[in-house]
Every structure is written in C-alpha cells, then in structure tokens.
C-alpha cells in the first residue's frame, strides 16, 4: 500500500512542471497513477472479502506512538476503490474540463493529485494519529483547490471558511484521538476498538471525535462551508466535495462506531444532527437556482443521511451505511461531472437560463437521469437497494432498539426524518433534472457545444456502475457483511436486493417518492413557502459573526496590551518584580532578619549622597544636570568600593565614571539642553511610585537573601588560590584575567560590539573616515598660513588645524608634557596589574584618557596624530589576542585559558615573574584602547564634523534666507 501512496505524492510533485511543459494532456497521464492503484486494489479484493487484512507498518516517531501503519479491511477497501477510481476518472475529465490556458493549472494539478494521495492515506491508515495526518492534509489541499481562482473574493473567502471550520473540528478530533490513545495505550485502530475508553474520558473523546467528523462531513451546524466550497472548479467539487473528502467524517464514524456507538452521546449526536442535516440540506436544495449549489445542498443532505446510518452502530446499519456511501459516491460524482459539462457547454449553471439542453445533449441527460434515479432511490439502481437496507436497519432500531437502547420515540423520529428527507431528495432530484435539461417555456434555448469523449466517459462509467451494482446485490452483500461482522448480529441479516417483497421499507420509499413528486409538481407553492419561512438563525451568519467578533476582540485586546510606550512596558516589568517575587518576600520576612547596619560610618554617609544624587537625577530636566548627578552617584559608588576595601575596583569605577562623563558631554553637544519641553504629566507620580516600590522590593530582596546565607562563599578560596595557582597577588585582577577570564572574554566581546555599534550609528556606513595625518591637511582658509620651517618643532602637530580662538597654548604645552607620562603609567598599570592595583582594563582607560586629552587640546586631527590606527583594527586585534591566548594553552597540553607562571632571568632587569594570563590582559588593554578611540572618533570627531557641516550648510543657506 505504501508504494501506491508514495506514487501519488511523487506524481503530485512532478505534475506542476509537466503540466507547465505539456499542457492539460498531462492529466491523462496523471490519471494513470490512481487508476493503476485501483487495479492493484481490485486485485486485493478476493483476499479482503475472505477477511484477510492487508497490513503494512513503518516506524516513524515511536516516542509519540506514531507510525506509518496501513491496513485494509472491507471498509477501507471500498473507500480506497472509490478514492482511486473517482480520482482517476476525474483526472481524465480534467483533461477536457480545463482550457489549455487556464491560469494556475500547474499548481492545480499538483494539489489535486496530492489530495488524492492524502485521501487514500486517510482511508488506509491503521493508526488514528496517522489518519489525522492525512485528514489535515486533505483539509489543506482542499483549501488550495477551493482557492484555485484566487482573484475571486468569493473563492478566497470560501477557502478560508472551509479551512477554518474543518480545522476547528480537526483539532478537536486530534484531542479526542490523543485521549483515546492515552486510554488504549496505542493509536492503532485495532487496539482502540479492542480496548475503547470508558467513563467520562469516553464521552469527552466521543464528542471530540464527532466534532471532527461533523465538521469534515458538513453536518449541521457546520454544513455551510460545503456549498461555499463550490467556488472550486467542478472536478474538484465532484471529487472532494462529493465523493471523497466529505466522506472522511462518515468513514471515521463508521470506523469507530463499533467501539463508540454505545458511549453516551454518540448515537444521540449522530442521529439528531444527521437527521437535521438531511432535512436542512434537502430543504435548501429546493431553493437553489444554481444547479451546482443545488447538488451541493443535496450532498449536505445525503451526508446527514449517511451520518445517521453510520452512527447508529448496529450490524444492519453498518452494512447499509457502506452500501449507501458507495451509492452516493457513484451518483454524486456522475451528477457533478454532468453539471461541469452543462456549465461548460451551455455557459451557465442557472436553471432559470438553461433550456433545451436535454435535447442537445441526450446522452448526458440519460447519464444524469440514471444517477438522479439512484439518488432518489428508484429501482433498479444501487441507490434503491442501499436505501432499502437503510430503512430496514432504521426500522429495526425504531421497533425494538436492535440492541442499541435507542428509545422508540427517537427511533421513529429518525425514521420519519429520513422518509421526509428522502421525499426532499426526490423533489430536488427532479428539480435538478428539470432545471438542467428540460425545455422551459419562455426561456431561450441554450446554445450548446458538444463535449469531448474525456468529458462523457467518466460520468458514464459511474452511472453504469450505479446501474450495474443495483443488480449485484449478492456479491455486494458478502462484501458488506464482512465489514458489518464487527457488530453483534441484529434483528435481521441485512441483504442488498432489488426485491424484498412488500414490506414497510418499500412502502416508506413509495411514500417518500410520492411526496417528492408532489413537492416538485407544486414547486411554485413550495417556493412561496420557502420565501416566507426565513429564519434569523443561520449557521453561516453565526460563523461570520464569530469571525468578526474574534477579529474585533483581537484588535481590542492587542490595543490594550500593546501600547507602544516604553514607560508602560517598563512599569509592567517592575510591577511584575514587585508582585511576583514580592509574594515570596512576604513569606520570607516571617523569619527575623538580622542585619549589620554598616561597617564604618563612611558608608551610610556616602550612601545618602548616592541616593540623593539618584533621586535628583530622576527629577532633573536638564540633561547636563542629569549627567553630572549620575557622575556623582557613580563616584559615590567608587567610594563605597574603597570603603569596603577594594581599591582596585574603586580605581576602575573611578576611571569608568570619568570616561562616561566625558563621553556624555561630547554627546550632549548634539542634544537639546532639556529632556522635554512638554508640561509634566500627572502619570509621572504613578511611575515614581512604581519605581519606589521596585526599589523597596529589591532592597528587601537583598536583605532577605543576605540574611539567609549559611554556606561559605566560593570567593573565600580566591585569596589563597590566586597566589598559589594564579600566580598573582591582586585578587581582582587574577579573578578578571584568570579565574573568571571566560566572563571577561565575553565582556570584551560586549565592548567590541558596543564600540562598533556607536561607530555604526555615527558613521552609518563605514567605521570612521580614512585617518588623515596633519601633513596631508591643507590649512583652513580662516587660518593665516605661516611658512613653517621643516625642522621647527611644534607642541602639538595638529594645533594649527584649530581656529585660533579655540587654541590654548598652555593646554597644548601641558598635554605635550603629560601625554607620554600618562602612556607610560598605563603600560605600568598593565604589567603590574597582576600583583598591584591596575590591569589591562584600567590601563586601557588611562591610555584612553591620554588620547582624550590630546583630542581636547588639539582637535580631531590631533587624535589621529596621537593614534594613527583604525580603532576597529585595534579592537579586533585585542579580541583576537584574547581569544588566541585562550586557545594557546591547548598547544601545551593545558586547557582553555589556562595560565602558566614563567620565571625568567633577564639580564639587566633581573628576575621576571611572568604569568601567561598577561597576554589575555594585553588583549583587554587593546580592546579598551580601541573602544576609547572609537568613542572619541565617533562621538568627538564624528560629531565635530557634523557640526561643521551643518554650520557650512546654514552659512550657505543664509544668503537666500536673508533675501526672502
């Protein structure tokens, strides 16, 4: 079975290009796949009738209990024959139906064949989860096929409607399958049938499974999607929405009825909804003027009928259900294909405009009449024998319950409903035949072009089968019996035959036919009644109402949550912190918390300063003020580090604060002096309160967690290990470049991207301009050129590039004197860092400050003079050095970032105590210097340039502005 499935999907994959190249003839070729499958399936017939199940298993996801398990019993065999047979012949029909230049035909071919494969897989699945896989695939391909002509709004809407409704049911069914699988311990159909769930789970599962079935099979109240789906091309309607896909729900009901029929809710649901569907569908079919829609409603009606029979769950009903299903597929496929012929040849499907088609297409009319007779249940057709067996089965249920326990009133109501439904069926069948083929008074005869053989052969085959199978009740009975055997024997042994003798079933059939004939004859009257009987309750309207409501609710909800305001998002986060961990805080505070107020009096004093500075920062409206206050808070923190006994941290913090201040000031040149000039909003009080709450919460968290510690912190060992293993006395530095060097490497990467990011925002396209040395720069016009002696030394080479009023000779002199000293200091910090305060980070910052001074004294060209390198190269080298120093120890048999202590005796200098982590620290140094250079280049020089450019532009614009 797997090969025929695979062949379908393979054919689907190659179909689009083939159709693209060779046109619609390819459909004939594609038809070979299902027809060959049909042949193979037919060959399995004897085995299936003998009761041998054909099985095949391939594991897929054992953890989920999902396997590609295929099996074929009589039920599956009949459906597989239908799926492949109808599929193949409809493909043949397609070769005639479509115009050669039909848009979208390539993808259509793929979707159609893939659908056929999915449908075949659905009926062959022996695993419910696998069945669901194919089930949803049919939904999706149906969606694509309905939307074959996507330019029509109606097609799109119908596709969406079918997709949403059937997936809704499908998902419910999936949960049902999962419940059943959980209860049975397996998704295998045979296991589920062997050990069906019991109790509440069974009822839930039954309802959920039925939800899948009724949505798929367009049973009330989900029937409305099916007529909408008629937006699809007629071959699709004939195959998917008449013969194949809509049967999936019926198939599921028939498949699971042996296990579920006795579960509370199963019979009630199927009988009531099925009967209602049969009546609603039939009634609405009588109202249609589009013959395709008429058939669509007819299909809805028949699906309701099938649901009733399949859901009854007695041996006779199971037998009859399969017979009816077969009959329906054959006559409905014929009728839809006939509609396609009429539509294409006469150019309309409106029965008010069609006239005289029967005379011009007599053979087509004959086929339609045969199929119609089968639909109405006339002998000697399969429709008749099937319906007789249905009535017999239902009458048994009504009389005695036939082991179902269905109360008599329900049983009789169903029989009455079915008879009424059959009457409606007879009436709309007549309406259809009359509408499509009759010659009507006062209607201009339609012009008809004769159809090709490919159009007529498929419906002819189906019609012939409807007729033939009417006479082969005997063999069919054997086959259907095999299927029904899974039910206990009932009141009578079901049998398909043209003559049962005069019994209740036959009388009821005659009654329904008579009423149907009458209803057709009095169609004018019926139409009047229909026009008057309008109901405000419409499933389709409810669907639209629900979808609109959903859209609207989505918009409202999203509008409420997604405010696009940073303040609100931050408030939410802070509130969550206050409320969520805060809840645990309340419990944690139950225990008394002991705490040390301070270690020395300096701490609270500094803390007060920091807090006040922080509060004032939040209140500041001037940016500069805020920046200075942040600086105060930062320096205060540095002081706190110092008071805690961490000079190294304090030094670093101090340098960072200084650099930050300077950078801020550089940036502030380009920002308005005030944060906002809008009046203060009252909401700031709320925000302040939230901030305060968060602060209190976090402070309490720290208090509680600090008090809870009993374990010895790992850092206690740092002091001894840093010296013994790390070879350095400065614990902070050893921590940074060795114990936790991996963190430092990460943070280096952070610095690298931060620098890159700042540069990218200022220079957008490339990092910085090419570096220009002073000697390449012409004197600015504003500066009077002095003839310089080559040998003459200047304090700062780029000083001349500044406007005279911006120069300060003293500053230049001091800079010149200090610069190299600072650089030497920074190198000292770098090398001594392992044992004394310092290290690569601090050293880098000091170098950066030296560069900053050069920049401030001599302008942007001076910066380039001082560091004529690309900052990116510096940063990149730094990161590279750090990373390589991490990898290098591997070459010496160490591990990543492992350091070694090397004591060298160097002449002149003496004993040198070298720890290899120094290389890592050099990387750190380079990155920090590069970062500083990048910041100065972009926020200093870059902004200088922008300011200059704007000045130039405004100068250039000024004369015209003045003239206006």
């Amino acid at each position, binding site marked *: 079975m797997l090969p025929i499935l695979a062949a379908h999907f393979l054919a689907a994959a190659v179909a689009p290009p083939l159709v693209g190249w060779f046109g619609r003839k390819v459909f004939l070729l594609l038809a070979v796949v299902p027809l060959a499958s049909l042949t193979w399936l037919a060959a399995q017939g004897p085995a299936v009738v003998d009761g041998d199940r054909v099985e095949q298993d391939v594991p897929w996801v054992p953890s989920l209990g999902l396997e590609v398990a295929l099996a074929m019993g009589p039920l599956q065999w009949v459906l597989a024959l239908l799926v492949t047979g109808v599929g193949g012949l409809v493909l043949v029909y397609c070769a005639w139906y479509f115009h050669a230049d039909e848009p979208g035909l390539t993808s259509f071919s793929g979707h159609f064949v893939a659908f056929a494969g999915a449908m075949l897989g659905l009926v062959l699945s022996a695993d419910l989860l696998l069945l669901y896989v194919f089930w949803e695939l049919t939904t999706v391909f149906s969606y694509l096929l309905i939307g074959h002509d996507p330019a029509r709004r109606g097609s799109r809407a119908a596709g969406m409607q079918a997709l949403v409704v059937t997936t809704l049911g499908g998902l419910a069914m999936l949960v049902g399958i999962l419940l059943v699988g959980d209860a049975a311990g397996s998704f295998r159909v045979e296991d589920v049938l062997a050990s069906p769930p019991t109790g509440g789970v069974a009822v839930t599962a039954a309802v959920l499974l039925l939800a899948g079935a009724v949505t798929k099979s367009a049973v009330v109240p989900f029937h409305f999607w099916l007529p909408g789906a008629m937006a699809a091309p007629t071959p699709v309607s004939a195959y998917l929405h008449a013969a194949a896909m809509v049967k999936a729900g019926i198939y599921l009901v028939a498949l699971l009825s042996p296990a579920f029929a006795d579960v509370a809710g199963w019979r009630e649901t199927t009988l009531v909804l099925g009967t209602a569907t049969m009546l609603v569908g039939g009634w609405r079919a009588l109202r249609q003027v589009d013959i395709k829609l008429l058939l669509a409603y007819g299909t809805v009606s028949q699906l309701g009928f099938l649901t009733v029979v399949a859901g009854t769950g007695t041996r006779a009903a199971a037998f009859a259900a399969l017979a009816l299903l077969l009959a329906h597929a054959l006559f409905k496929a014929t009728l839809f294909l006939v509609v396609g012929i009429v539509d294409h040849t006469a150019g309309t499907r409106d029965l008010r405009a069609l006239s005289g088609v029967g005379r011009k297409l007599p053979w087509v009319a004959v086929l339609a009449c045969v199929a119609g007779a089968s639909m109405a249940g006339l002998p000697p057709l399969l429709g008749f024998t099937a319906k007789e067996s249905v009535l017999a089965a239902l009458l048994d249920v009504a009389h005695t319950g036939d082991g179902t326990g269905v109360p008599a009133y329900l049983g009789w109501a169903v029989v009455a409903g079915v008879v009424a439904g059959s009457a409606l069926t007879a009436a709309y069948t007549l309406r259809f035949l009359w509408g499509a083929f009759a010659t009507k008074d006062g209607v201009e005869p339609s012009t008809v072009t004769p159809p090709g053989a490919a159009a007529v052969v498929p419906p002819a085959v189906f019609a012939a089968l409807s007729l033939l199978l009417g006479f082969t009740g005997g063999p069919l009975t054997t086959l259907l019996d095999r299927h029904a055997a899974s039910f206990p024997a009932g009141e009578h042994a079901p049998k398909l035959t043209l003559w049962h003798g005069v019994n209740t079933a036959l009388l009821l059939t005659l009654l329904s036919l008579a009423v149907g004939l009458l209803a057709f004859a009095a169609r004018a009257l019926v139409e009047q009644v229909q026009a008057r009987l309008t109901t405000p309750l419409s499933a389709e309207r409810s669907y639209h109402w629900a979808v609109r409501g959903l859209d609207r609710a*989505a918009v409202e909800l999203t509008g409420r949550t997604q405010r696009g305001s940073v303040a609100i998002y931050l408030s939410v986060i*802070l509130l969550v912190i206050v409320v969520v961990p805060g809840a645990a805080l309340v419990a944690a505070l139950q225990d008394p918390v002991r705490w040390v107020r301070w270690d020395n009096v300096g701490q609270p004093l500094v803390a007060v300063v920091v807090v006040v500075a922080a509060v004032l920062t939040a209140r500041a409206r001037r940016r500069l003020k805020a920046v200075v206050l942040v600086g105060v808070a930062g320096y205060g923190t540095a002081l706190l580090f110092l008071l805690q006994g961490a000079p190294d941290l304090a030094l670093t913090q101090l340098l960072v604060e200084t650099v930050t201040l300077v950078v801020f000031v550089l940036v502030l040149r380009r920002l308005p002096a005030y944060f906002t000039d809008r009046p203060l909003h009252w909401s700031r009080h709320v925000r302040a309160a939230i901030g305060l709450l968060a602060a209190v919460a976090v402070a309490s968290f720290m208090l509680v967690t600090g008090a809870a510690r009993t374990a010895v912190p790992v850092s206690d060992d740092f002091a001894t290990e840093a010296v013994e293993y790390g070879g350095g006395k400065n614990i902070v530095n050893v921590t940074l470049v060795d114990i936790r060097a991996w963190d430092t490497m990460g943070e280096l990467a952070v610095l690298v*991207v931060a620098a890159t990011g700042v540069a990218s925002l200022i220079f957008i396209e490339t990092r910085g301009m090419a570096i220009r040395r002073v000697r390449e720069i012409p004197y600015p016009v504003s500066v009077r050129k002095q003839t310089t002696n080559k040998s003459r030394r200047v304090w700062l080479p780029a000083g001349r590039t500044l406007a005279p009023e911006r120069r300060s000779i003293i500053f230049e002199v001091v800079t010149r004197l200090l610069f190299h000293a600072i650089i030497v200091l920074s190198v000292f910090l770098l090398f001594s860092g392992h044992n004394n305060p310092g290290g690569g980070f601090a050293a880098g910052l000091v170098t950066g400050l030296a560069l900053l001074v050069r920049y401030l004294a001599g302008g942007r060209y001076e910066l380039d003079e001082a560091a004529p390198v690309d900052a990116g190269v510096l940063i990149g080298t730094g990161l590279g050095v750090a990373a390589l120093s991490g*990898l290098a120890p591997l070459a010496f048999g160490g591990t990543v970032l492992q350091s070694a202590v090397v004591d060298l005796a160097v002449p002149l200098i003496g004993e040198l105590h070298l720890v290899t982590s120094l290389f890592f620290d050099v990387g750190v140094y380079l990155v920090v210097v590069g970062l500083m250079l990048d910041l100065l280049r972009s926020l200093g020089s870059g902004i200088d340039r922008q300011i200059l450019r704007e000045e130039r532009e405004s100068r250039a614009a000024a004369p015209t502005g003045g003239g206006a």
Partner: protein
Amino acid sequence: MSDALVALPVIVPLLAAGLSLVLVRRPSLQRMVSIIALVAVAAVAAVLVVRADQDGPQALWIGGWPEPLGIALVADRLSSLMLLVSALVTLAVLVYSVGQGMVDEAESAPLSIYHPSFLVLAAGVANAFLAADLFNLFVSFEMLLFASYVLLTLGGTESRIRAGTIYVVVNVLSSMVFLVAIAMVYSATGSLNFAQLAGRLDALPEAVALLLQLMLLTVFSIKAAVFPLSFWLPDSYPTAPAPVTAVFAGLLTKVGVYAILRTQTLLFPDSPLTTALLVAALLTMLVGILGAVAQSDIKRMLSFTLVSHIGYMIFGVGLATAAGVSGAIFYVVHHITIQTGLFLVVGLVEHRAGSTSLLRLGGLARLSPILGLSFFVPAMNLAGIPPMSGFLGKVGLASAGIEQGSTLAYVLVAAGMATSLLTLYAVAKAWSLAFWRTPQQAHETSLAVQQDYQDAPGEERQRVRVGSASYGRVEQQEARSIHDDTPDRDLYQRLQDDDLPHHRPRTMTAAALGLVGLSLLLTVVAGPLFDYTDRAAVDLLERTPYLEAVLTGDTP
C-alpha cells in the same frame, strides 16, 4: 584536551569577530571568515551532540582552576542540541545576509559592522547554551544583547532607532534585574555555579529559595517574552532588516526559554511554581495569538505568533514531566528553525515586492510560485499542519498534557489547539491577502482604506477595517503610516511601472529554502530526534548526569 571542544563554539566566533574587524576593508575575506567560523561551530556542535548522547555531559572547567572556583562550561544533551540547531540557523541567516549584501548594493548594508556583531551574537548564543554558571549566563546575555542592539539599529533609520529604543531600554532594565537576581543568589548561597547551586539552594529556607526562583523566572521570562513581559517584542523585532529579525526571532527568545528550562529543572526541582508556569503559558499563547490575528503586516504578525508559541514551550516546562520537557525541547528545535525560516522568506517578499504590509501586497503566488511555496509550507508548519514538525511538537506537548491529566493541563491542551487554529487563521489570512488576491484588488482596497481613514472622525480612525484585516488602536501607527506614506507605491503600482527588482536573489532564496528544508527534515528524523529529546528530558529531570559531570570531586 578533547574537553576543549566545549569552548570552541564560543571562542571560534569571537576569534573570527576579531579577525573580521581587522579585515574591515576586505569584505570578501570577511565573509569567508564568518562562514568558515560558523561552519566550524556547527561541526563542533554536531560532535558534541554525539558525545553528549554517548558519553554523557561534556564538562570543561575553564583555566583548570580547582573545581568550584573557575567557570565551567557544560554540553549535555540539551545544550548540544540547542547548539547544533542554533549553529545551523545562524549559518543559514549569515549566508542569506551575505546574499542580501550582494543584492541590495544600493542599500549599502554596512557589512563591515554586520559581520563582527553577528559573530558576537552567535558566540553569545552558544555561550548561553553552554554556561554552567549564573554570572557567565549573564555575560552570554550581554554578548547577544549588545550585538542585537547594534544589529537592530543597523543603518540608523528613524523607525529602527525608535524600535531600538524600546528594545534597548527594556533589555537594559532586564539585564539590571538579572544582575540583582545574581546578587541575590550569590548573597544567599555564596556560589554561582549551577551544579553547586543545585545543592546549596536545597539548604535555604523555602521562602528564600522561592524568592530566588521567582526572580530568575521573571528575568528569563522577559527574555523569552512570556506574558505579561512580552509586550516589548512585537514593537521592536519587525523593523530590523530581515535576516536580523529572523535570527532574533529564531534564537533570542529561545535562549530565554532555554534558561528557564535549565534553571527550573536543575536548580529548582519539585518546583511549587508549575501551576503558575502553566497559567503564564496559557496567557502567553492566547494573548499572543490574538495579537497576531489583529496584524496587517506579515512581520508583525509573525512576531506575535512568536510570542504566542513561546507559550507552547512554557507549557511543556510547566508540566514538569519527562514527556512535557521532551515536547518543549522538540518544540524549541522546531520553532527556532521554522520561525527563522519564515522571517527569511518574508525578507524575500520584501525584497521582491518592496513591502511586507498586507495592504500593499497581492498576487505573489502567481508572481513567483517559488516564493509562494516557500511561504506556504513553513506557514502551514507553523500552524501545526501535519505531517510537519509543528504538528509533531504540538502532539508531543498535547499528549504530555493529557498524560499529566490535571484540569489545568487539559485547559492548556485546549488552549494549545485554539492557538494552533488561530495561527492557521492568521497565516491563511496573510496568504489570502498577499499571495492570492490580485495586486489590483490590493491596490483598490488600500485606496478605500485610506479614504475611509481620512473620512473617519478621530477615534473611529482606529477602527477602519479592510476585509478581515482590521486595524485597532494598536495599529494607529500602522494606519497613520498608510496615510503618511501615500507617496510610497504598492505592489500594483510597481508592477504597472515595471519597477520590480529583476535581479534574482539566488543566495537569499537558497538560504531561506535551506531552512525550510531543514524544518521538513525534522519531520523525517522526528523518530530519532524525539528519542533524543526524551533522553535529554530524563537527564534534566534526574539532574545527576549533569551534577556528576560538573562536580567530579577531584580538582584538576
């Protein structure tokens, strides 16, 4: 030292980032370096997957310090798998962006900045999966966040800066909260190493441990975009360049999910918070997907589905059963692949049609069948249509929920199905409008919308509707932008003027299709993959494999 392999996924991209900065004026070399680095990472990750599966968690103590002192990296089954998937995905995105750089020369994509930032992002993501130390996890977050700040504001256009502001501010706050959480953990336990913490947290008073757990959960929930900490995401992701959005959407939130998964299982077993997690998962799913339904821009819509589907993963974590955790891991793998792939495809749409707004698009399926296929398949996968990985992940989670059997779990199963349906609805709507409807219809509809918008009085302007695509207060900005950007031409007008790119973005398409292919491959290998995630989940819940691998008891 073979353990060193564990460090390579971080150190190699960092080395490459350094190299790439040095090679700033040699773009072709830069590209080569980046690609080689990520290929190497993927290869190492694959080796780690095999090793972790066969020999147990691979632990490395950096620098060879005595055991609890230094920093440890651990690649267990979960980490290695995450590493492998993220490496493949980043590689695909890199290839895509290289392609984009070559195609969109006019936009002068600043590749010199892009490559190093992207590599640092990759290193950060890798480190987050490997970190066995809370502070080191913080560092990883900083790496990927800083890189993401740069990538998000690439090009510095106004909308990107505006979106970037929300993103940066929210994430800076979340980083701060993370630091506070770390300080709390350290002050309560005196340790940051996961394995050591696992032991020490047990010794704490229950309330304090709960406090720490909630604090960490809050922090990671911001990263993972769990409701109500998710609002920032859809406002910031969609504006970035397509490959950037793609990699953010695929990986960054998953790092948060990973952190939740890791800390909840390793540090807080027998969590009292499973109910809370399930409720958060429920709200995340539903609020997120309703957000997606309300969108009229494909990128924004996908950003909301991203948030929503985070709910699935939290659902699995919240179940706290082996099946639930396994389902969550599988779903993470699926979702990384599919969400990244979809965003890349949407990038192709943007490239081809000049917009991702459903108001401006139409007829794409006919214009480019390949584009249609490469959107439709992953979109259906996202919606959980079988037999694709989204379906398998959904089934894994749902059956875990049913197996667990609590009422709340059933509610979550139902909500998961509803989310699945609404995801399908949202993507089908996008398909219907952007791919099916003709460009002309799109043009006429959007003209009508603009007219309605201009005619509508104030408050009502926000409620203008087109077909089933609707605009609410959220969409003010959107509606305003249709209004403001009238001079911008939609697809119809571009077609009329024959103003579409003729250049076929082959590399981009190949990269996007590669990811789509990878997501389909997940279906084929679902059997072994689910077995693997089952084993990973058992490891996580047992804890001992991890603990024993990290704390061997002997100091090197």
